[in-house]
């Protein structure tokens, strides 16, 4: 966790220093008060005290109390700023880092985990810092200060306080060792409960169709009972805590007074009064000592959780960026060409190659298609073009330049990429189509409309109540899957790229839309090169060149007709989708 503190700026360290000073001041004032209390006690006790003295001491005490209040508030201001700054800086750093990571590293962490790391984990550490700053700074100062004040007063009282501290610590540690592992169990059980509910909800039609309502309810009830039993147990163990703490605090006061009675009766007359006021003060300080140990114990309860979060954050921040920028951003000799030269790819730690020895060249305006079963590597292949991954062996050239030599921005400006699963951002239809930065000016309204028209999105967009300015919810939950896909394609068109990359982008469309879209696209982008990954033969049968992939190797290359004749795997795929007559074989 301390590694993360390096992210604090000078200002934050200054704030922390100030916070420590103010907290120390506050503790000092806080501990000064019992002295005034004791004076007041003495004054009240002794015959012949002046009311004026009492008032004066009372006023001093109140002054201390007010000073302590002000110091706490000021320290709180600094601490809250440090905490907020920490979240601000670290969250920004993680976000920035994730954006720079390669797809490979992101997959390694998993998107969901990266999201938790950027949000929850940062919050966890912040809470530990703000709470910790209070506890970790205040408690030791208080404890040490209070102990020095009372250390030499009476060994009997000190022993009693020591015993109280030990009892309290044992109680806390025992309770926590019982409870903390069960917290984890409860979390797991809650996940299970969620799981059962989720499956009932997602499969609601199946549950009803199989008349399995009772079956699901029993399953839910079993999980529910388990959750209820465990929470009840944990709650019960936890309910020992508060009475025990009160018992210790009350007990120590009683013990000090009880012991005090004997100590006083044994001291000489002129000491009695002093011992008595010492007793009142001691019982006060003893409470401070016990409380500060309580806070310390609590702090060490929070630390492990925050530590886990901090480690998870550091893992992200320390991850090496494997895809680094080149420095080429000049004009290229060729335009719209993609070439793979003996490309092989495997994940850094994997043994098996996902792609082995792939070579092909796409000329300007050509369409190259890739087909093969799941896991054949076709998606991986085209992801090498925008450098989502880097090749293991061989090289990929765009416009005759190795993709590794490009500045990534310069490379990306040539490409229009459409993923398998449409990515839709919250915003408007127009902001989704005109998304990104292609080095030129933002696409005009007309350009956006043309792109939508080509992508077959015009019809549905214009039926929306605000047309191109219609609101799109996060992940596009307010439009259908096919509509999302069409917007994603329109986005690529609006970018005006030299090279289109369609990573299985047409599967979510029905045949009719698929065909219409490809026709419009062909007309609109006569000069653009297209790389298409597809599952349907119909989508690719008119491509200039088709590569058939199987287990990472290229097992066939040619046009539809050529492949039907001489590629067994291609023929197999084709026949599973269309009849012989339809294929005209």
């Amino acid at each position: 966790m301390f590694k993360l503190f390096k992210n604090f700026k000078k200002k934050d360290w200054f704030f922390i220093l100030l916070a420590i000073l103010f907290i120390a001041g506050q503790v000092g004032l806080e501990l000064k008060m019992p002295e005034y209390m004791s004076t007041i006690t003495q004054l009240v006790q002794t015959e012949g005290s002046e009311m004026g003295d009492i008032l004066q001491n009372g006023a001093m005490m109140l002054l201390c109390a007010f000073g302590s209040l002000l110091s706490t508030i000021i320290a709180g201001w600094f601490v809250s700023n440090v905490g907020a700054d920490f979240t601000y800086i670290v969250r920004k750093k993680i976000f920035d880092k994730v954006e720079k990571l390669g797809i490979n590293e992101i997959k390694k962490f998993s998107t969901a985990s990266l999201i938790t790391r950027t949000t929850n984990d940062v919050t966890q550490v912040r809470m530990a810092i703000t709470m910790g700053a209070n506890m970790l700074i205040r408690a030791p100062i208080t404890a040490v200060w209070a102990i020095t004040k009372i250390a030499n007063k009476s060994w009997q009282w000190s022993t009693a306080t020591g015993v109280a501290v030990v009892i309290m610590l044992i109680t806390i540690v025992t309770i926590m060792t019982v409870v903390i592992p069960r917290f984890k169990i409860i979390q797991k059980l809650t996940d299970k409960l969620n799981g059962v509910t989720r499956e009932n909800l997602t499969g609601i039609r199946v549950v009803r169709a199989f008349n399995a309502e009772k079956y699901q309810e029993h399953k839910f009830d079993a999980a529910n009972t388990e959750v209820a039993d465990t929470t009840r147990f944990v709650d019960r163990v936890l309910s020992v805590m508060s009475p025990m703490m009160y018992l210790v605090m009350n007990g120590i006061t009683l013990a000090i007074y009880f012991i005090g009675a004997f100590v006083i009766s044994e001291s000489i007359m002129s000491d009695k009064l002093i011992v008595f006021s010492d007793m009142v003060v001691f019982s006060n300080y003893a409470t401070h000592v016990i409380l500060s140990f309580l806070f310390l114990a609590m702090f060490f309860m929070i630390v492990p959780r925050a530590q886990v979060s901090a480690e998870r954050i550091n893992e992200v921040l320390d991850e090496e960026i494997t895809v680094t920028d080149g420095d080429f951003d000049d004009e290229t000799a060729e335009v719209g060409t993609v070439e793979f030269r003996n490309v092989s790819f495997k994940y850094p730690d994997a043994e098996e190659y996902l792609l082995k020895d792939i070579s092909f060249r796409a000329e300007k305006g050509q369409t190259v298609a890739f087909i093969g079963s799941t896991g054949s590597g076709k998606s991986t292949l085209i992801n090498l073009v925008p450098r989502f991954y880097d090749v293991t062996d061989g090289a990929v050239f765009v416009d005759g330049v190795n993709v590794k030599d490009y500045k990534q921005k310069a490379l990306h400006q040539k490409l229009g990429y459409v993923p398998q699963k449409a990515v839709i951002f919250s915003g408007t239809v127009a902001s989704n189509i005109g998304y990104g930065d292609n080095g030129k000016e933002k696409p005009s309204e007309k350009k956006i409309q043309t792109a939508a028209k080509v992508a077959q999105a015009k019809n549905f967009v214009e039926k929306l109540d605000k047309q191109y300015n219609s609101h799109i919810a996060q992940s596009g939950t307010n439009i259908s899957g096919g509509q999302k896909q069409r917007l994603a394609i329109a986005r690529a068109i609006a970018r005006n790229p030299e090279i289109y990359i369609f990573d299985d982008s047409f599967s979510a469309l029905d045949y009719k839309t698929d065909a219409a879209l490809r026709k419009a696209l062909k007309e609109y982008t006569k000069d653009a090169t297209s790389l298409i990954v597809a599952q349907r033969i119909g989508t690719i049968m008119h491509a200039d060149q088709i590569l058939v992939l199987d287990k990472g190797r290229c097992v066939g290359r040619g046009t539809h007709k050529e492949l039907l004749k001489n590629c067994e795997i291609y023929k197999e795929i084709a026949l599973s989708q269309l009849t012989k007559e339809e294929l005209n074989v």
Partner: protein
Amino acid sequence: MFNGGPGGRRGAPEKVKNFSKAIRRMLAEIKPFYALIALAIVMSILGSILSVIAPDKLAEITDEISAGLVLNREKISSVANELITDPTSSSEIDGITVSPEDKTVFLIKMQEIQSELDGVTEFSREDAKKIYKKVDELPESIRGLIEPKMNFEAIRNAATFMVFLYLSSAILEFLEGFVMARVTAGFARNLRNQISHKINRLPLKYFDRNQIGDTLSRVTNDVDSVSSSLDNSFGAIIGEGSLMLGSLVMMFITNWIMALVAVLTSLFGFIFVALILKHSQKYFTMRQVELGNINAHIEEVYSGIAVVKAYDGKEVSDKKFDKLNKKIRFANQRGQFMSGMMHPIMAFTGNLGYVAVCVTGALLTMNGVISFGIIVAFMTYVRLFSSPLSRIAQAVGGLQPAAAASERVFEFIDEEEMPNEHDITNRVDKESIRGDIVFDHVRFGYDDGKTIIKDFSADVKAGQKIAIVGPTGAGKTTMVNLLMKFYDIKDGDIRIDGISTKNMVRSDVHSLFTMVLQDTWMFSGTVRENIAYNHSNVSDSQIMKICDTVGLSHFIKTLPKGLKTDITDSESVSAGQKQLITIARGMVEDAPFLILDEATSNVDTRTEELVQRAMDKLMEGRTSFIIAHRLSTIKNADLILVMNEGNIIETGNHEQLMKKGGFYADLYNSQFAL
């Protein structure tokens, strides 16, 4: 159409609509636990009474100790008188022998004191100290006579009684927690079960309109927050409330002037805390909202990272992130600062109360109205009175979101259920059904105003195959909804073997259909449980026979525990195998009608062939409704229903429809077009 639900309520806390109504409802739902809660309340009140008596006893001890601090002048003068009567011989007073030498020393010291205090009418503190110094110089025997003595018997008794008090109040508090744990856990369990039962009594319409995440969060988050508030807020209000009330009563019994002083100063602090609470609430809400916003943005960027990279969207997303991050920084800082102020203010109030009590107490003691012990007792009363105040304030603050959560839970529980079917008495036996189905002028629409199926009639004979085709989003699920009676038709009739489905209970209609949908719905459990879903009387050999038929048996043999392998644990189940398992499940169900979604997505070609063969097996001998994706199925279907925009726009077989040259012909030909 199923995406039209209200947007997710990401992070944003909802304001409670009707606070008192929500609380009343919550109280009504806790009814089964009233006895336990009453027990907890009684224990809590008893505990409070005990802890309120304790300071009084501590005051007793303090008074006893104080009695041993000051010299009693009358005692001294009486001792002096006795000693003076015979200064030369030793005498015995109160069992202590005083020697003549001791008497001499005593008389000398007394004279010294007298001379020093000559002319002083009132003792000052310094004077008192001087006297005590002299007293310490007296011989032991005399000191024993004149020094004040404590009543150790009384102290010991009081202390023993206090130990008893503290112990019993701790035990009572623990027992209260013990009982309340049962109440909260049981209450949460009841609520969850109610929701679980409710899920299966709601019409499908509800789930098509509401997001799953929304219902899920009611089951866990909302129930959790209701039950934990029951523990923290209700518990605190009861416990702390009785403590506060108890100390209030005790204070006024002990001394009303001091009580008034203590209450007024505590209220002063309380008002401050209430103000801060009210003000900081704003920042907490703001933080929740902003946290929701930034989480949404992060999720969006991370899950779409490939597009962000390929389109160089980093700058745009960074700009938005920075803006959101700044907002959250502000809310974080203010919220933290505000909530951090509560405790110091309460501590200050405590100190203020202390000083006020001490000053008033001193004033009253000096005038002889009260004893010092009462001041000590009040020091504790002030604490007992003021600390519950702040906790109650927090509890009331915590009740607000809990009420909002409970509103959401009860809103779900009170949702309108499917119409009950008590008046339908005749039951249908699936064994005796042949499998004819007639659609008689069916009209249907999801919303009352919009009819999407306008007038659909068809006569299907047992064993026939009906293909449903159309572009994505054409409303093919609507057919499933109507056949399965998931939704009720608006007009017309659907008759199975001549019996109107209106006169069948839903569970009977369901039992007549085998349904295999594109979503390969797997649930946690073993492979066997997934196949023999909801059928307890299926033998292993029957299941294996079915697995043979659909081509699953090889796969099952490769699993570590065969049929008993947990599906949740083994990620090795591919999409195709999942599809095969759903088909096997359909075979176990063995009903006269079949609804089948043919789509095979994300399946490699070889498995796809396997799946298709299994589907063909499943269709054998059943009246089948097939959401068709394969040309072979469509072409040899007895009837094709062509759907678009929710409506059935064409019906007929392949030849008829091709000849017609309409939408279907267009759709069919588009597969071969460029």
